[in-house]
């Protein structure tokens, strides 16, 4: 069974009767069983997946209506709720938490006959960019297992890249879909804020986070977006997708489109190989008729500090619910005073979550809010103005997704500032609510490099068209696993 196919090829194959959903899903589970001990993408596997796929084959054979996914095996980041399944957020705090309901994205995919093969690894509560902060151990980059796969949706990227599923859902708060996509050579898509419902996504920083697909191809990302985008009465921040078909016209090309090269994202600290790949991507887009020019976004220099200030503040509030009474593990209340009980329970948080909660208590507190939190919100406002101005001149913005190559496991874990700076190119899209995509573009020293394209809010269709055009200019090797 050839598992190395795109979502659209899989769907076509099952529709035509050339591929059996049951065989494909069974082979996928075999592959997970064969290689995941080494890669550690999965935290749990769905034992009913093959039965579910078999029932889809039956529907196909009997001519019943079948959903658009035709039993496609999808992995789900373990901070997105699937009813009656464990949803751990890669945290000891939620090690045994069984979700009582489906996230809206899960409902939508289930209605289209997707098969969820398992829940995948992340940095604990999505706080990190290497998957090293998972309480259950890091995932490994399938291109070189001594290297991080990126994060926080590292398990999602590994599972797609290593053919352990066809597509995955991750969440992106500051680049958590695009960063691992770049490090593992998959497509990673963060939509316009509100385009995909967050209902059932365990909250970290609500004002900027979004669920997004990781896929093999840009067309697959558009296919997934067609299914999961749109209004949701359970999430008041959702926006109307107006039933946009993101796949149709994806090959429209980018002739005449104006693309701004973000100066602050190709300067100091960029790896020369990443810079060279970025220049190559720009030349290729120009050869397709795009007009590329440099643009300066001054606030990018402050964006990482603003991002961590805002997200820590929201995390400090969101994680207050983990008091071992509403959520937590089995730990008796007998003999404890209220505050000491909660403090003891919270020992089950990992070190990065504790650090961010401490920061989240400090930066918005009386006496410090003016210096940190309010200033961060002002940077966010000014950055949004700068980006909106840029989109008056340009249709799209371009940068490398991450300024450096994937790094070795353990290399940066003790240096929080050097980890912060890995986010420099991705946080702008989150702080401004703009859609952005990482497209696999090059391999250097056996490690992937992704290129990021960004568009104005609700221009997701244009963004996917440009990403498809860029993807069409290159052929990359497959993962060596």
């Amino acid at each position, binding site marked *: 069974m050839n598992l190395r196919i795109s979502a659209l090829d899989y769907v076509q194959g099952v529709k035509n009767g050339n591929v059996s959903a049951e065989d494909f899903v069974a082979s996928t589970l075999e592959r997970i069983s064969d290689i995941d001990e080494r890669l550690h993408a999965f935290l749990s596997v769905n034992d009913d997946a093959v039965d579910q796929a078999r029932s889809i084959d039956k529907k196909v054979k009997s001519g019943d209506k079948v959903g658009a996914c035709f039993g496609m095996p999808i992995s789900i980041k373990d901070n997105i709720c699937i009813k009656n399944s464990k949803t751990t957020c890669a945290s000891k705090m939620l090690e045994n938490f069984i979700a009582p309901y489906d996230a809206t994205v899960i409902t939508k995919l289930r209605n289209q006959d997707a098969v969820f093969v398992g829940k995948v690894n992340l940095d604990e509560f999505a706080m990190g960019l290497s998957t090293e902060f998972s309480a259950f151990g890091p995932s490994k980059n399938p291109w070189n297992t001594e290297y991080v796969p990126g994060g926080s949706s590292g398990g999602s990227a590994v599972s797609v890249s290593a053919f352990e599923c066809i597509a995955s859902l991750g969440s992106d708060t500051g680049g958590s879909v695009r960063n691992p996509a770049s490090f593992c050579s998959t497509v990673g898509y963060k939509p316009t804020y509100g385009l995909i419902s967050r209902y059932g996504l365990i909250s970290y920083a609500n004002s900027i986070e979004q669920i997004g697909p990781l896929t093999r191809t840009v067309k697959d990302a558009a296919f997934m977006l067609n299914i999961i985008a749109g209004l949701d009465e359970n999430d008041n921040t959702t926006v109307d997708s107006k039933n946009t078909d993101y796949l149709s016209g994806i090959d429209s090309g980018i002739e005449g489109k104006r693309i701004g090269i973000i100066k602050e994202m190709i300067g100091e600290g960029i790896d020369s190989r990443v810079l060279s790949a970025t220049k190559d991507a720009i030349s290729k887009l120009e050869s397709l008729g795009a007009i590329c020019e440099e643009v300066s976004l001054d606030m990018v220099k402050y964006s990482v500090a603003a991002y961590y200030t805002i997200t820590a503040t929201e995390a400090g509030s969101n994680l207050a619910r983990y008091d071992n009474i509403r959520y937590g593990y089995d730990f008796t209340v007998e003999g404890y005073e209220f505050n000491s009980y909660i403090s003891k329970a919270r020992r089950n948080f990992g070190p990065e979550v504790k650090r961010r909660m401490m920061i989240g208590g*400090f930066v918005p507190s009386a006496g410090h809010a003016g210096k940190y939190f309010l200033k961060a919100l002002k940077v966010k406002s000014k950055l949004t103005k700068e980006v909106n101005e840029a989109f008056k001149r340009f249709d799209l913005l371009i940068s490398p997704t991450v300024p450096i190559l994937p790094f070795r496991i353990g290399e940066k874990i003790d240096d929080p500032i050097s980890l912060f700076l890995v986010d420099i190119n991705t946080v702008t899209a989150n702080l401004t609510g703009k859609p952005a995509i990482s497209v696999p573009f090059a391999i250097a020293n056996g490690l992937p490099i992704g290129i990021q394209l960004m568009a104005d809010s609700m221009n997701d269709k244009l963004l996917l068209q440009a990403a498809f055009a860029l993807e069409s200019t290159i052929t990359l090797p497959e993962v060596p696993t």
Partner: protein
Amino acid sequence: MVTQEEIEHVSKLMKIEIDDHREYVDKVKKMIGYFDVLDSAGVESEEISMPEIQISSLREDRYIPFSDKLIEKLNHYKGTYVRAPKMSS
């Protein structure tokens, strides 16, 4: 510059107990220290923009029944109440 005492105070407020005190304090200090870069952003006069949603666009404020009895899923549910630790006097 943030002090060790301030960090210890906030960790108490956030109900976080830490063993390896020094390591935590040093890292948190370093992280907060990095945020000082915000001082040079020159945004003092900037207005903070917030997204606005019309009340009419919000979901109707009504009770939505849930199929499962969620309270029964709590670890310390005792049939008619949830056992919590005692409050200090």
